[in-house]
């Protein structure tokens, strides 16, 4: 497969929501420090797959999971309940619609740092917050109103703030669930640029239903269809030489 190391690997991953069979025997490998796009029609289980990586699915009572997920070679289902936050800390999550926490811009970025008791000195914390806001290109826009409620920002700014909040705890992976679907084209472009920059230091997993976005950004592609992995591989292979008829149809635009 790829020259780089494997960050996330699933083995026979099955997920049920109540009686609904959502993910069927999923076996995938996600390379480290690259951008992997999970593509497929809506309702095919993309988001479910994404949220299984940081055990976020399990906050729902009705979910049943079997199989293994290895992150850095460690099976995440081996860890006990009180270790789950440590697994999650390794992976930032960006949701479809930006959800800033109900606090100030500053506190949003400081949230994870305070929880993990990092940068406890005021000066250190300030510097860290400036750093992460600069990383997402938000610093110049908000430096004079750091203590305003985050909800006053525009949607595009909010999404970049969420990104800053996620990377502030220094995760290894950034999970993005259609991060641009609520944004206008310009804000979406900013996020795409950021993701391309971030993949140098982080493993980025991007769920997207826009094929063009996947083509623009992805190094590696996983095509999901009705909960099954139909095809996976380096982006140029999947896009230029799809093998499975369903993949071919999806890429041609016959199914969406």
């Amino acid at each position, binding site marked *: 497969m790829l020259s780089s190391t494997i960050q996330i690997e699933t083995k026979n991953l099955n997920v049920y929501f109540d009686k609904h069979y959502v993910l069927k025997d999923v076996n995938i490998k996600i390379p480290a420090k690259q951008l992997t796009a999970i593509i497929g029609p809506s309702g095919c289980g993309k988001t479910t797959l994404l949220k299984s990586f940081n055990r976020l699915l399990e906050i729902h009572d009705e979910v049943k999971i079997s199989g293994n997920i290895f992150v850095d070679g460690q099976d995440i289902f081996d860890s006990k309940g009180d270790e789950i936050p440590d697994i999650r800390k390794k992976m*930032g999550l960006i949701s479809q619609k930006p959800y800033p926490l109900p606090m100030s811009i500053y506190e949003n970025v400081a949230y994870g740092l305070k929880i993990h008791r990092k940068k406890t000195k005021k000066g250190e914390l300030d510097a860290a917050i400036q750093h992460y806001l600069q990383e997402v290109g938000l610093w110049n826009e908000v430096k004079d109103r750091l203590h305003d*409620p985050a909800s006053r920002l525009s949607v595009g700014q909010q999404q970049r703030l969420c990104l800053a909040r996620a990377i502030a705890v220094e995760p290894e992976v950034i999970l993005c669930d259609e991060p641009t679907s609520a944004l206008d084209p310009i804000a979406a472009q900013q996020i795409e640029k950021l993701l391309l920059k971030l993949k140098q230091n982080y493993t980025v997993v991007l769920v997207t239903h826009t094929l063009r976005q996947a083509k623009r950004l992805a190094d590696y592609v996983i095509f999901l269809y009705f909960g099954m992995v139909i095809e996976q591989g380096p982006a140029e292979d999947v896009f230029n030489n799809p093998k499975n008829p369903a993949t071919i149809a999806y890429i041609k635009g016959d199914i969406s």
Partner: protein
Amino acid sequence: MNKRKLRDLIGTKLMLIATLFVSLLFFLIFVLLLFRSGLVLQDNSLFDILFSSTWNPDNSQFGLAPIIIGTILVTGIALLIAIPISLLSAIYIAEYAPWKIRRILRPFIDVLAGVPSVVYGLCAFLFLVPLTKDVIAPWFGVQSTGLCIFTAAVILAVMVFPIIISLCIESFNAVPLALKEASLSVGATKWETVKKVVFRASTPSVIAAILLGFGRAFGETIAINMVIGGIPRIPSSVFSPGETLASLIASKYGELMSIPVHESALMLVALILFVVVLVFNILGVFILRRAKRRWTY
């Protein structure tokens, strides 16, 4: 004008009239209370009535201080008991309980909120009064008949539980899942998420729930009337009998309505109840609006 348009017009006007009628009633009650309480204010200043400590209508003494103190004590203690317990159980039901348990508990709590207060009063009279008399008051080294402020406050707290719990559950459930996920995904524990995100995001509605609970506690009449002892004297401890504004009206209206100035005194008490509830509601709306502006998500 054709028939459809006419019907539309009539419908619109009917709704307007109904609304005006309801608002008018509200003002009528207010004006009635205001005028009827005028008589007692001719011979006594409002200051005297509010702050003098002797309530003895036969002697033309209408000091409300003991009753106001009783009301504050009963309502305050009730909320002091009710708020933490309600919040904890609301959080449990909304965030921690397995959904099967949640499905049973929620309607159960809503039913509790609808039980007539006289039922609570009766239960308190039969069980809580003896318990206070024989166990709780002696434990604090105080003698009590059990008919006292403490008993009234406890039963009031019990009555306020379901209101606050029910409203809080609703507001906790209204917090978007993605907001919780955002917190969990930076490695926050469930408790940290509840404390710093769920709680914060629902602060305005929790305040509203508490204010509604206050309204219920402040105006509750019959259950308190049954267990408070009905003695308008400044209480020496929470185990002394007392009286609240609402309960005073309930226990005295029969005997006092025959003498105009006595009637007027009760009308003043009613006016005070009316105004306090009004002020707290306006305050509630104001706080809610401010809090919402700050904590939208």
